């Protein structure tokens, strides 16, 4: 869980979401505006200010049974679509970038 001290330091520079891994199976999940978790990035609550990000993270981290390791992740908004904001989040959202079988 992000410590209160660390949460105070959080600054965001663009649209962001809170993401974590679901506790029972580890699946990638996103915090929704309904205070739940969804495996779809499109369901995620989008925050645009640091205060809102801190509040969403604090609320998410309090749900320790539902999901583990909540943190703020950048996203890109494009014509109503939400896309991961960096490669790490792209991989978490879309899956492996590799072929599992020899090609």
């Amino acid at each position, binding site marked *: *869980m992000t410590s209160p001290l660390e949460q105070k330091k959080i600054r965001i520079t663009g649209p962001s979401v809170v993401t974590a891994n679901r*506790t*029972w199976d*580890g699946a990638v999940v996103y915090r929704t505006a309904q205070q739940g978790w969804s495996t779809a990035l499109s369901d995620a609550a989008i925050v645009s200010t640091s205060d809102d990000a801190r509040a969403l993270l604090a609320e998410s981290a309090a749900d320790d049974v539902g999901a583990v*390791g909540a943190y703020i992740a950048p996203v890109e908004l494009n014509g109503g679509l939400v896309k991961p904001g960096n*490669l*790490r989040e792209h991989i978490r959202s879309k899956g492996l970038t*590799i072929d599992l079988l*020899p*090609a």
Partner: protein
Amino acid sequence: MYAYDELDRTLINERVSEFRDQVKRRLSGELTEDEFKMLRLQNGVYLQLHAYMFRVAIPYGTLSSKQLRRLAYIARRYDRGYGHFTTRQNIQFNWIKLAELPDALAELAEVGIHAMQTSGNNMRNVTSDQWAGVAPGEVEDPRIWSEILRQHTTLHPEFSFLPRKFKIAITASEHDRAAIKIHDIGLRLHKNADGETGFEVLVGGGLGRTPFIAKTIKPFVAGRDILSYVEAILRVYNQYGRRDNIYKARIKILVHELGIEKFAREVDEEWRQMGHSALTLDHSVIEEVRSRFSYPAYEKLPHMPDELKQAAHDPLFERWRKNSVAPHKVQGYSIVTLSLKPVGGPPGDATADQMDAIADLADKYSFGEIRVGHEQNLALPHVAKRDLPQLWKALDRLGLATPNVNLVTDIIACPGLDYCSLANARSIPIAQELTRRFANHDTADMIGRLHINISGCINACGHHHVGHIGILGVEKNGEEFYQITIGGRADENAQMGALIGPAVPYAEVADVIEDIVEAYLALRDRPEELFVDTVKRLGVEPFKERVYATR
């Protein structure tokens, strides 16, 4: 093979029951993640990018066919049908569900497999030469000592909360296949001038953020004293190791800061106070452990059977035999390495179907035994030479006969950013692209022995520092870049590679490696001069010039 006794079986089963209760309490909310994290790590469970990752120990790299079939079953039943063999004789499953982990552990326990010592700040899986017990010229089977250390350290309270993780590797051959010089403690079995068997003890090796080659702390410790001497080292580490800074917590930092002479004096004083008593190994204890290792009833076979003479006419078979088949200590037998590095495949991965098939081949051709090496390949350690042609055909059908062992496409790679929460950059696609670039086996043969190691971050799970060519993924302004080192090696002459220049972007890595290899081919003074020897002779400058002249 080592046969577990009732005590081992009880311990493993009790551990499963304990973890089942811990998982139940975690899922109910009785335990927070902060409380649970250390407990799951002590059972090999990490949280990675997409899911929990489950790391299972393969002590000293020895597996029975029954155990490998169970690993295949776990991959199929609880994961996505494959597993990843690591650089420390473990296997990892990447997609396992926490709620199902206790069942998976229980099914592994039925065949004597567990996940203890695969994570946490304790003694990790004690590794050894994957050819232990079968390599010609070996002093004796080093796994006996790995097993003694495993038994002594498993759940030992003094070693369960060390300043940081602690890794030991043991070899008994002149040529080090266990990479002992990059371990916290490296043990080299040898005989002293009186013919007594004991260990050269090395300490303070390791890679990661601050890499060091281990230093010899004692040239000879008799076998009966090895437990007490290792414990003395651990006690000094436990007392003085840095717990305030995770980046300075490994024993290598302590050895470096104190200096090997002062560290050795501290260990000797601790050892003297211990009095060599309780931990001095009785001959009977050593022999009891030795007796629990079983060895095949080898037949008396000819050195060159007719089957092998006939098959030698097939150039494809001969290429594979020369590359993947090694001499055995018993006449008429061979050690066969199974490459888990097919062109375009993720290094070290095996599907459940492949694992099942390898188990069947082990039963048919290798007395039911399989070995796992730190280079992320498998081996069948007892194959009769007369069976090599048939085995080759079977392996080829399974995609396990790529004749690239120790060649440029036999790449060691960590899971990288495709899986790992610590990674800054991807490793596997770099490896896959390189295997495609060097897919021509004639070219790979012509290049000769060349080890490429790739890590997706500074933690160095891909051992990039000691690759003949090392590739380290870093992140720059949100983009993947890679630092290239050359001249490293992990064997008895271990040394760190030297950086050749600024990091290059993802898209250019394969081109850069091709440039380095082409430079080597132009610079080597004869075809037999290995890449790493050319670098030693000429230094990095000619390679640097070639790579950066046009970039």
